[in-house]
């Protein structure tokens, strides 16, 4: 599994995803509408990865835990509490860029 080009197929067939807090992993999973448990690596200092995981957790899109609490989380989890993740809107970026560049 070391460096597969894309996890898209695996994600599509999964019922639950457990992942590190990498943005790509989190977002790809959420966009496929799969329930996600984010495991935070507390050994990485100044881990800015935490920012996104914390925010996603705060907004109710993912469950969070660390390595030692993973088993407990799996036993007690209620996935129905997770909210569906709305997609980002690159069209808003395109509109903005068109404006500043003068293509209107």
């Amino acid at each position, binding site marked *: 599994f070391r460096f597969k080009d894309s996890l898209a197929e695996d994600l599509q067939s999964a019922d639950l995803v457990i992942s590190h807090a990498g943005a790509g992993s989190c977002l790809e999973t959420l966009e496929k509408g799969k329930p996600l448990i984010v495991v935070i690596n507390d050994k990485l200092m100044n881990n800015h*990865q935490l*920012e996104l995981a914390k*925010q996603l957790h705060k907004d109710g899109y993912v469950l969070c835990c660390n390595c030692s609490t993973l088993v407990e989380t799996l036993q007690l989890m209620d996935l129905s509490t997770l909210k569906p993740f*709305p997609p*980002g809107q*690159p069209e808003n*970026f395109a509109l903005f*860029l068109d404006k500043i560049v003068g293509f209107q």
Partner: protein
Amino acid sequence: GGHTTEILRLLSCLSESYSPRHYIFADSDKMSEAKIRSFEQKRAETFPNSQFTLHRIPRSREVRQSWTSSVVTTLYSLLHSLPLTNKLKPDLILCNGPGTCIPICISALLLGLLGIKRSIIVYVESICRVETLSLSGKILYYFSDYFIVQWPDLKEKYPKSVYLGRIV
């Protein structure tokens, strides 16, 4: 990897007026080329006259590389990026945070100061940055023409930034 995915998403809704597209990435990057080619291939289905080029420059900084050695490696990248930027003379530079963007932006700023070419620099901070800016972000907040953030916390902390919500 993350930066490339994000930037391709940013490009996904752009009209064909944004052409030709020149992609610049680090020589040590093994995965971006495939992603870019795949994106452009798909794009060519809708816009058959799509034009793009790929360029590699030395990586300016490894993750968590020390300050002093980063300055040296960035200067080395600058030696490559200055002639490249001068050759391409971009009207618009879109970057989203990898160290690779710093020497390109410095080159563009220099070319602007010398009256050779004025490029618009648009920086989009990564979606992962919710509360703090990346190092590239902290630098380019002052040197970009438009600095876009994707979370409201950052808009509060950096009032000159533009907040458009989540755009990737």
